[in-house]
């Protein structure tokens, strides 16, 4: 039999042709390779959340290999001597086993927890970027809504996750969750009994939370993240205003290879950060908390940071109970059920509310600098302030303890602050925005301050300004229109002074350029002129 000689050179071509005959992949693949992405550091915040989610999936799968979601009581016989002989649930015992007797198990557990904290932090910071730059405006309202839903799902994923080890702290969290369910008017006791399978804590809740935490919620997250990214892809990313940038184009670099490589490098850096945190900083040392006992709690019981605002609001809520005949609504209901529901769903309507108020029905692909929309920044600052006060109040006992402040004063401070400070934040934020706008306009109208003072014949001192554009016949600058982007405010931003030589061990051969805007060819150094004192 004669063996046919395989043409190895031709093999990839043959394979690619075969693929294309079946899937018609050429054109979409080329479009993907060529897709242009705008680049700015603030566009990478959402990526951190995405990368954290990938780390969560990887480490989470590892954890499931060892965790036993069972509430059967057992006497601990593991490696940690302080708890040996203690009655505890299988869930807690297997979490201890994972931490002490699985090689690298503690490292994986801590990676998982740190990645979860980073996931939520990245979501919040990313959301703030989207809000303050107006990136949610038409046509991207749907992605804003999906983002809010992702926060809520992440919140639930976090809560169900840290309830699983069934240690003293997570049991206390579950107890509060049950109380929150009980506080719902009319159906509260039914909801709690149905979810816990009887009276708290029952024998089912860890198993139910487990399936929610490892299947239902991650499934939802995965689906929403897919749609989220798909929409970013379809609608193309927003970009900052600047030279060459319009509402109908994207200025940046092609996805492959440079942009994709940068993303890969960034993923590794995020992964490294999580590994470093997990290795060096202890998180949730469950063996110190002991198994959950309904009669035991330690002070300074704080939830994970993204739940603290809710805990803080619960602490600040005055003891107002509403009585309706023989029935009543406990005060816990308002912050924990109404509050959480409101703060995670009401902002979904914001893009439409803003569009209705401003009557703006246009498509926006250019971002707005926060200063250019003081109203929005003011409202955002109100929300951030409210969130921060809630979060601080979630740890007010620790603050009271460490700073020797009365606990009651902390509570009252939080109550008053929750009402007063957001209004103050609104006012300050609006003024700051207007001030920044004013300064931009000033520079555009008069030029950059050179720092050179000239004395006029009449004895008056004036500062020389470097006009940014052409001058009229009197030598006064012709005012330039504001382009929605950074206005150079220092002489070395317009190429007057060479920036300090870069490089740590070696000076870089060529002095680096002073970019006016990312993506814009830098101002070249050849046209620099020396600025003189004006005295000839």
């Amino acid at each position, binding site marked *: 039999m004669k063996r046919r000689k395989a043409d190895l050179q031709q093999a990839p071509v043959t394979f690619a042709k075969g693929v294309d005959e079946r899937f018609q992949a050429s054109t979409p693949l080329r479009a993907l390779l060529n897709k242009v992405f705008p680049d700015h550091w603030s566009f990478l915040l959402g990526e951190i959340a995405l990368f954290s989610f990938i780390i969560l999936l990887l480490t989470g799968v590892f954890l499931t290999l060892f965790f036993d979601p069972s509430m059967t009581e057992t006497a601990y016989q593991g*490696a940690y001597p302080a708890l040996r002989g203690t009655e505890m649930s299988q869930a807690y015992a297997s979490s201890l086993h994972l931490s002490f007797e699985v*090689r690298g198990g503690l490292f994986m557990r801590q990676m998982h927890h740190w990645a979860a904290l980073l996931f939520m932090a990245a979501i919040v910071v990313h959301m703030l970027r989207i809000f303050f730059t107006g990136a949610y405006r038409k046509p991207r309202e749907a992605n804003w809504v999906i983002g809010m839903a992702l926060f809520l799902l992440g919140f639930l994923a976090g809560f169900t996750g840290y309830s699983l080890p069934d240690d003293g702290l997570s049991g206390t969290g579950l107890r509060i969750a049950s109380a929150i369910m009980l506080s719902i008017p009319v159906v509260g006791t039914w909801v709690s009994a149905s979810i816990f399978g009887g009276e708290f804590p029952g024998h089912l809740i860890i198993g139910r939370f487990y399936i929610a935490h490892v299947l239902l919620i991650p499934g939802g997250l995965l689906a929403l993240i897919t749609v989220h990214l798909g929409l970013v892809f379809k609608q193309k990313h927003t970009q900052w205003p600047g030279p060459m940038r319009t509402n109908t184009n994207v200025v940046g670099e092609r996805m492959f290879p440079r942009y994709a490589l940068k993303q890969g490098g960034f993923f590794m850096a995020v992964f490294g950060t999580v590994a470093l945190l997990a290795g060096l900083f202890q998180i949730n040392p469950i063996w110190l908390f002991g198994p959950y006992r309904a009669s035991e709690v330690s002070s300074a019981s704080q939830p994970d940071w993204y739940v603290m605002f809710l805990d803080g609001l619960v602490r600040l809520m005055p003891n107002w109970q509403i009585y309706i005949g023989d029935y009543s609504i406990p005060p816990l209901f308002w912050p924990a059920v109404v509050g959480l529901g409101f703060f995670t769903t009401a902002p979904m309507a914001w893009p439409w509310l803003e569009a209705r108020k401003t009557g703006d029905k246009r498509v926006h692909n250019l971002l707005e600098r926060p200063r250019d929309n003081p109203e929005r920044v003011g409202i955002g600052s109100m929300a951030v302030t409210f969130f921060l006060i809630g979060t601080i109040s979630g740890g007010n006992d620790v603050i009271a303890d460490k700073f020797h402040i009365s606990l009651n004063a902390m509570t009252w401070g939080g109550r008053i602050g929750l009402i007063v400070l957001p209004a103050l934040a609104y006012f300050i934020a609006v003024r700051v925005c207007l001030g920044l706008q004013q300064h931009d306009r000033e520079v555009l109208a008069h030029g950059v301050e050179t720092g050179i003072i000239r004395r006029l014949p009449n004895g008056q001192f004036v500062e020389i300004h470097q006009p940014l554009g052409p001058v009229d016949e009197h030598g006064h600058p012709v005012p330039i229109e504001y382009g929605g982007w950074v206005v150079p405010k220092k002489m070395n931003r317009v190429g007057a002074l060479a920036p300090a030589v870069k490089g740590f061990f070696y000076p870089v051969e060529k002095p680096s350029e002073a970019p006016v805007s990312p993506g814009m060819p830098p101002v070249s150094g050849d046209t620099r002129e020396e600025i003189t004192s004006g005295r000839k």
Partner: protein
Amino acid sequence: MTTTHHDAPDAKPVDVNDPKLSRFDVVKEGLRRDEIELITYESQFQGTNSKAEKRVVRNIALLFIIAGLAAFAFLGFYIFWPWQFELGNTTSDYFTPLLGISLAISLFAIGFAILAWAKKLLPHEVSIQARHDGASPTDEQKITGQTMIFVGDELNQGVQRRPLLKGAIGFGLAPIGLVAAAPLIGGLIENPHKGEHPDLFTTGFSAAKNGGNLVRLTRDDGTPIRPEDVSTGGQMTVFPGIPHGATNEYADSPTLLIHLRADDAAETRRNADADRRNQGSMWGNYVAYSKICTHAGCPASLYEQQTNRLLCPCHQSQFLITRNAQPIFGPATRRLPMLPLGVDEEGYFVATSDYKDTVGPDFWERP
């Protein structure tokens, strides 16, 4: 290669089969078809093999080598470092930090190597791609809209003209939907009020849980308590003296037994006797309150002896022991229920009845 291209947006299409075209020309034809204009595409270095370029290449290579070494270090620590927890052996304490540091160095090195490669070695480029926003062409909108309405009509007319079908569909589909919901709801739902003594209103101190006998107060190991076991001004967490009484099966039963000083006890008794429910619930200078906070159910376990306050560490509700454990600060609205105390013939504490108030967090239908 140092080239700066300023292609006009209306660049002419080229024949990609032209053998004279370079590969870059073919790529540019692809860009044209994707409506991309390459504004700048230039090497980061002047000339080939410049000193700067060599240095960048050396640095990137060094980073990759560091990544490999750190990865080996990770494997070394993972395999050879003593990792099993042993009391008094601190070497194993460094296992997790060593894993973290070596893995982080490795990942950071890979990350920065890739970043440096992308940012320093690959040509710098600025491209502009056209967006296509806005709605589809109006005729497309019209066709799709009409098609959808047509589909609707097809289905609708069938129903409009045949009323029997309408009823049958409604009758047929609605129950199917309920079938989907039924096992989920039916399986999960639990009646919190079921039984003669629903758990919602009963604790382990109910005589019904002890075959009709009064329930003793016990420590968590099940041993009963005599009055002299609690010193004056002291307190003790007690549990119902029934099987599993100190476990989470009776999560609402933990109780705080307090031995008050005489003057505080007198004041507490005065206030308790003035109250219909707490009347006669104290025994001597002893009082017992539920430990489960009426706000969110945490154990309100911080006992401040000087001010006679109980503080819940979860949300800082504070209860005044001498005044029927009324809440005096924080979000709690309801006092802690008092357990009626007695001493049996053997001299051990018993609960003369279950709590008269409902224990634990508040809810809608609490009596």
